[in-house]
């Protein structure tokens, strides 16, 4: 089938079996390799993307499910080459070490701040609970997200 949706604000039409994982469609059909595969079963959150503003694990979403939706990946966070405040804060505060969880973590944090612009640390912990990081101990990630409260 042909699946039509928008990715990072641009229209996309992809010929794919409806059951193909959104993760594979993004990485292999649209060359958006910022979305990572860490476990393939929805545990690690490395493949997190936003569908109509909500965080999902793209390894658990079938391509057919995004028909008509707006998908945001990490490649869509910067605008005209300018990093988002969160991306900037991740760099400044050392929230990205190896970087493999970073795209998913950024998207989860974006969704959290969009819904709750002034989260407490506990709310940040809950908001990021679906995204595993093995490098940072999360502390610097919390710092970066809390620094972007508005």
């Amino acid at each position: 089938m042909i699946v039509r949706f928008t990715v990072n604000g641009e229209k996309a039409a992809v010929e794919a079996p409806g059951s193909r994982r959104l993760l594979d469609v993004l990485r292999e059909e649209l060359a958006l390799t910022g979305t990572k595969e860490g476990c393939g079963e929805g545990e690690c959150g490395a493949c997190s993307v936003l569908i109509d503003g909500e965080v999902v694990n793209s390894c658990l979403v079938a391509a057919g499910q995004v028909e008509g939706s707006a998908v945001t990946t990490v490649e869509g966070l910067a605008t005209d080459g300018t990093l988002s405040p969160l991306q900037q804060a991740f760099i400044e505060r050392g929230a990205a070490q190896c970087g493999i969880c970073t795209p998913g973590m950024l998207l989860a944090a974006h969704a959290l701040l969009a819904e709750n612009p002034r989260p407490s640390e506990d709310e940040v912990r809950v908001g990021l609970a679906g995204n595993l990081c093995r490098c940072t101990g999360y502390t610097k990630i919390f710092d970066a997200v809390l620094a972007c409260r508005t």
Partner: protein
Amino acid sequence: MAKVTGAARYTDDLVIAGAWYGKTIRSTVARGTIREITFDPGFDWSHVVVVTAADIPGDNVVHLIRDDQPALAARAIRHQGEPILLIAAPDRATLQAAERHVRVAYEPDPEPPVLTLDAATETYTTIEIAKGDVASAKADVVVERTFRVGLQEQLYIEPQGAIAYPGKDGGVTVIGSLQCPYYVHRALKRALKLIDQQVVVIQAETGGGFGGKEEYPSIVAIHAALLARKAGRPVRLIYDRHEDLAATTKRHPGVIRHRTGVKRDGTLIFQDITIVLDGGGYCTLTPVVLSRAAIHATGPYACPNVRIRARAVATNTPPNGAFRGFGAPQSLFAAELMVEHVAERLGVPSLDLRRQWMLRLGDTTATGQKLTESVSADVVLDAALKAAPAVRPSDRPTVRRGRGLSLVFHGSGFTGSGEKKLGGTVAVEALPDGTFRILTASTEIGQGTKTIFCQLAADALGVPIDRVTLAPQDTSLVPDSGPTVASRTAMIVGGLVQQAAAELKGRRVGKVEKSYIQPDTIHWDDQTYRGDAYPVYAWAATIADVEVDTVTGEVRVTDLVTAVDCGKALHPVMAEGQIEGGGLQAVGWATIEEIKMQDGRYLNDRLATYIIPTSLDAPRIRTILIENPYSGGPQGAKGIGELPMDGPAPAIIAAIHDATGVWIDEVPATAEKVLTALRNADCGLRNGTVGS
């Protein structure tokens, strides 16, 4: 920058036209021999490449220390998940179909598989360290205790993977997720019978390592290269999480026994320690892990009489290997809890005993090493105590709170004469555009190598940091700086970068190469295990606060305070990042990360069942950086990568005791074990015995 925009290219992100997909077929028995491999004649094999041990042009070994591990099992099987054959196909569907049409039949071994350390009969290596005379030392009080430590998965979030390209000259290029390009380079040469120039190894952006990408990538690379050569085209061999968990190396489990003798006033008289680590089915780096475990076994304490007998054994379980701390977390766990047990027996606070025993400037370690500089046991202890939050009482009747403390040291760099033998090399060159380039095989795996090296070079050159770059970690471009392991990158390799840059200062052209020369003040004897085991030690004190739910047995670490002396924090934010990340990894090891086995196979070999700490489980982590410089390190820096793995586990176990009164002398202290201990205590039974 590239990591926050999605532009960073990890191995699986690389698009290679015409590349096939590879897969490893692994044993489903723990011990036996391969009787027959059959390929279903009903399946169309014309679009599939198959590689078996017979296709290996060179020696069928994964070159490392003992060379006992075959790249592909030819006959004998020593563990579950052992690689037997490789297949590659143009697309994933064909690959999966082909996998289903291969059958491996096994001949069971007359002997049953050895599945536990206690049942092991084969020994990989033994180490004995002796100081003074334990046998004739007279003590008033003798305490004996046995400690157990469990398997742990590194769980880098990017699984193992490599892509191999066949070369025109019969050679091969491998790009992969790895820590040590030259380990892979040597392993490829040996297995594929190639010369230096025929093998190129390139590190892609690497999504975490923690030791897990020290030796295992050699296997992935050999497999990918064998497939690529036979297929005559590039082959991608990317593990999924299940395969990575099921087959790759873990932290060595072990049993450590302590017999400690003291005078009534607490004076430490002797430490008699035995260590047994389980190496698994093949030797891998086990002898070196055992060595670090043995040398750190006394803890950071000065004892006149020490006997350490360490042994690594073979079992029919997947091989264990490098993991942050490299044996030291295991032996320091036991050493630190032993302080608690002796203190309890003497009826004194364990903090007082630590102060009484701790190594000070001029003291000698178990190997007879006299500590002449940068000794900070007392400093880190004071700093951690000062920074610890006020103890809060529990507000729930079924939850008890407690606090525990630990004091550890960690040798920076390779053990003994390792650095001398290695002679790691780097170069710094001046480029025509006025910038400078560092040439090193040391890899960036998230810990900050790139930034630290550029910063050290820029400082030494006297130029802004944006005028210094790092050449890619590509063996055709950079010299062998040694592996990115052992907390040696900043201190040893960083030191070479600094020296090379300093010599290049003021020059507009040219290149300066530097190789490590061990200071002549360092003496080590590999035979007797006497001398300067490490150039210097880093120190840490950790305070852990826990909540123990007495109904569920669940342990939650609420606060972790670590004071660390790393000589010089070259980049304070990154240094903190190492302490925080290593600290949480240790919290996982101490509380929830447990691997269950059945017939030599890991039962929880998926991320749904192997649990690591999430943002909800992470304690508030506070780091205090102390800089007690080392004269041989760049700007005074010592190692920092592994140290944070050492302290939290014993502090957490001591905190559980503080909260509940029960001792769990093992990690992980899972809810199940805590609950059992609490029940036994309720029944008037003690968990373990405090003997004499």
